[in-house]
């Protein structure tokens, strides 16, 4: 059996390194596409050989790295990480196809950074050692920073620095928490280790409740800021909006915040000093993010900014579902990550196409685009419908699972989230109606439809949204296996 977990990091990284040295646009895009295809192939190999009936680690590898610190290179894949790796591996090749025909300076760096990003994100998903995890976690910042800083919009410098520093500070707080956990466990056992699963298991033996709370809170802070949730979201609208289309999609694929929640925070949660308080906090943050994001999206003038706030609203479901602490609500939260990645890729690609083809993203300056861009309108409509939670598409399944099953433990917060559903439908339909339908705005001149590569890449993602909307089981089953394992831990402790 192939060491898939390591290869999934190495292959995009090597292709990225080579891509940096290419000379022409075609070479760079072609090599990038090839690299992402190989990654997709490896991922499919892993997926087909994956056993979704067990919550244990698969494709496990471990090599000693720094024995004196207890740091090992340990990687593996389970039901939490497999769907997210799949999401990344699927979207990236189509993202490269989508931007194939666009002209930009330094294409070698552009495609190289996309592949670096892929390697870093998959690295976070597979690593089982806190040190390796943290290195990949921070590595994701670099491609995104340059993406926004080099190819971004007018306020790109401000947006890129803000994103970088904001989430970097949050990551440092998380690092403090990791160190706290590391030392506390060292004191307990006398053996230093950075192994994530071991440290998480060791967490319950740490002396006092307040110390456990402090460790838990500082680690989860890094995740919540990355996700993001209200009130740590203020980097998001700027960064998502100023980034080029590919950058926005990479932001969307950056599912590491939610992943950390499932991998590290939820297993720790029942053992904190005051678990009820922590659940309450997550419930408030989750439900409020849902409502807040939806309300602000309703009044945005800029299409891309609207999608950014909509993304904040959707991420609220991840937190709410996690706080629900029922197997299916946690699965719903995991599925929301997967579904959101697909749907938002379509939305940002659509917004990007509108921007490049018409020169504006301001909703009121558009109008009647369906006449000039019928292909885009069809795919975009599907994306919007999926995003507002139309049954038969992925968004519905995720939100339904989260709302239905969180209701058992958190009825009040679910009610707050329900308020947002009406608004969510409202801003999606309203934006669609103003931008794409109605009378064509003649000031826009003659607008071309999206090119065939863009149609192809967006249509494939749209079809996946449709497929997983009808049949979520291929990814939902493995998620449920793992969420049951997480929840049984909480149930054993009576939380």
């Amino acid at each position, binding site marked *: 059996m192939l060491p898939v977990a390591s290869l999934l990091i190495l292959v995009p990284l090597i292709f990225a390194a080579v891509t940096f040295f290419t000379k022409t646009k075609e070479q760079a895009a072609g090599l990038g596409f090839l690299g992402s295809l190989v990654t997709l192939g490896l991922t499919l190999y892993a997926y087909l050989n994956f056993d979704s009936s067990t919550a244990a680690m698969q494709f496990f590898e471990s090599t000693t790295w720094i024995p004196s610190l207890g740091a090992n290179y340990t990687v593996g894949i389970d039901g939490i990480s497999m769907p997210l790796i799949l999401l990344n591996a699927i979207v990236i090749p189509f993202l490269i196809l989508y931007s194939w025909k666009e002209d930009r300076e330094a294409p070698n760096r552009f495609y190289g950074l996309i592949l670096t990003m892929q390697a870093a994100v998959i690295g976070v998903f597979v690593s089982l050692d806190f040190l390796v995890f943290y290195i990949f976690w921070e590595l994701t910042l670099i491609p995104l920073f340059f993406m926004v800083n080099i190819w971004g919009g007018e306020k790109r410098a401000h947006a890129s620095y*803000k994103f970088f*520093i*904001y989430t970097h500070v949050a990551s440092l707080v998380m690092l403090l928490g990791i160190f706290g956990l590391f030392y506390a466990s060292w004191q307990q056992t006398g053996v230093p280790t950075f192994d994530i699963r071991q440290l998480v298991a060791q967490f319950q033996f740490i002396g006092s409740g307040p110390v456990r709370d402090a460790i838990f809170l500082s680690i989860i802070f890094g995740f919540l800021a990355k996700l993001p949730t209200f*009130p740590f*979201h*203020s*980097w998001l609208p700027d960064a998502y909006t100023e980034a080029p289309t590919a950058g926005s999609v990479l932001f969307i694929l950056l599912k590491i915040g939610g992943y950390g929640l499932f991998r590290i925070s939820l297993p720790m949660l029942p053992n904190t000093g005051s678990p009820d308080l922590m659940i309450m906090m997550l419930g408030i943050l989750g439900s409020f993010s849902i409502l*807040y994001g939806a*309300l*602000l999206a*309703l*009044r945005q003038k800029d299409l891309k900014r609207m999608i950014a706030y909509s993304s904040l609203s959707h991420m609220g479901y991840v937190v709410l579902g996690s706080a629900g602490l029922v197997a299916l609500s946690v699965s719903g939260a995991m599925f929301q990550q997967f579904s959101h990645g697909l749907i938002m890729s379509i939305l940002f690609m659509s917004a990007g196409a509108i921007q490049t083809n018409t020169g504006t993203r301001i909703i009121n300056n558009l109008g009647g685009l369906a006449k000039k861009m019928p292909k885009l309108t069809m795919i975009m409509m599907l994306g919007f419908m999926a995003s507002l939670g139309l049954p038969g598409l992925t968004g519905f399944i995720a939100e339904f699972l989260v709302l239905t099953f969180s209701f058992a433990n958190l009825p009040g917060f679910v009610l707050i989230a329900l308020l947002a559903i009406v608004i969510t439908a409202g801003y999606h339909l309203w934006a669609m109606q103003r931008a794409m339908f109605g009378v064509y705005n003649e000031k826009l001149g003659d607008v071309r439809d999206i090119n065939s590569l863009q149609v192809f890449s967006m249509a494939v993602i749209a079809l996946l949204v449709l497929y997983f909307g009808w049949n979520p089981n291929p990814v939902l089953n493995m998620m449920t296996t793992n969420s049951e394992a997480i929840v049984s831990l909480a149930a054993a402790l009576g939380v």
Partner: protein
Amino acid sequence: MWLPDAMEGPTTVSALIHAATMVTAGVYLVARTFPMFIAAPDSLMVVAYVGGFTALFAGTMGIVMNDIKRVLAFSTISQLGYMMLGLGLGSAIGLDAVGISLFHLINHAFFKALLFLCAGSVIHAVGTQDMRELGGVGKVMPITAATMTIAALALAGFGIPGTSIGTSGFFSKDAIIEAAYLFGEHSNNWIPYIFSIAAAFLTSIYIFRLIFMTFTGKPRSNYHGHESPAIMTIPLSILALFALVFGGLTQTGFMDFLKETFANSFVNLDIGRLAGIGRNELVEATGHEPLFILWLPLITALAGLAIAFVIYYLRIVQLGPLASMKNPIYRLLYKRYYQHEIYTEFFSLGIVYGIIAFLMQVVDVLIDSIVEAMAIITVGAGEELRRIQTGVVQTYATAVIAGVSLLIILVKLIMEVL
């Protein structure tokens, strides 16, 4: 609230969606889950009150509208109110409540679709849907006029009590009103009955006002009407036939069928007990309704017809200032109880948009400025501290001497204290 505005759509769509299928989904839902409701009588009371109030409330708005389709839209809401009312009476008449209400739903679909299609036929021929510009259309469109009159009779519920002669609406709507009377006797609560009778009166007024204003009298504008082609009139005739005879032919069969359905699909329910609250026992206990009660719905309908006849056909009574915007009641009705102002302008634009504006301009800005402020303070602190590094040797020397002397003084002081 939303239904009259949705009437902007094509008339055939209105006929299908707004008359027959979509809007009745709510009624169907309550009917489907009726055993749940009957287990919670308080919720049935809510259903009854909401239904009765809706029937009356929509009726009052129906009598002042000038747009032919809007009259029908309010009429639809009013009739949906009847269906809900019928369901809500379940605490008195048991499972029969589902029967009468679904039966009204089906009959209503026939005559309301017919009304909409007739209205469409008129609009198609004449080119306006404002009844003030119509009049005398009956002369040029006899088939449409005849079928629409039949539909109006069905809607108003004409028929001869005690016999099985009558239009469809008679068998279903009057059954609901009768049930409301039984409910009144059963619980001494006469509100649903009063609502339903008053709404029946209004129904008759607004629908015959529509008929008289559209089809009789002299044309009030220059239009060139013609009868619609056969492809339009034949469906009208078929629907008219249904509106006329469907109710009388199927009433008993339908009720029995529904009872059986419930008995079959809710095996675990104590159907005997549920049906036990039913009408038959009540009727046996209290005797049949007085003859007056049986005739009252017809009398109110005739009264409504008479009023509409006097005002809009004979035109003996001139409404004048009564039906103008100067009359506050008329204005209230014409403005639909200011629902638009309350819902859209006050609630949506005022409260919801206000909250959003607060979140956008205060909360979001505040959160963001805390972050930005931290950045500015950090950069500012660096900027200030940078000035110390002047690069002038004399300044450094002065600072060193000052520092050293300060240290010496401090050491001296500490020594003395110790």
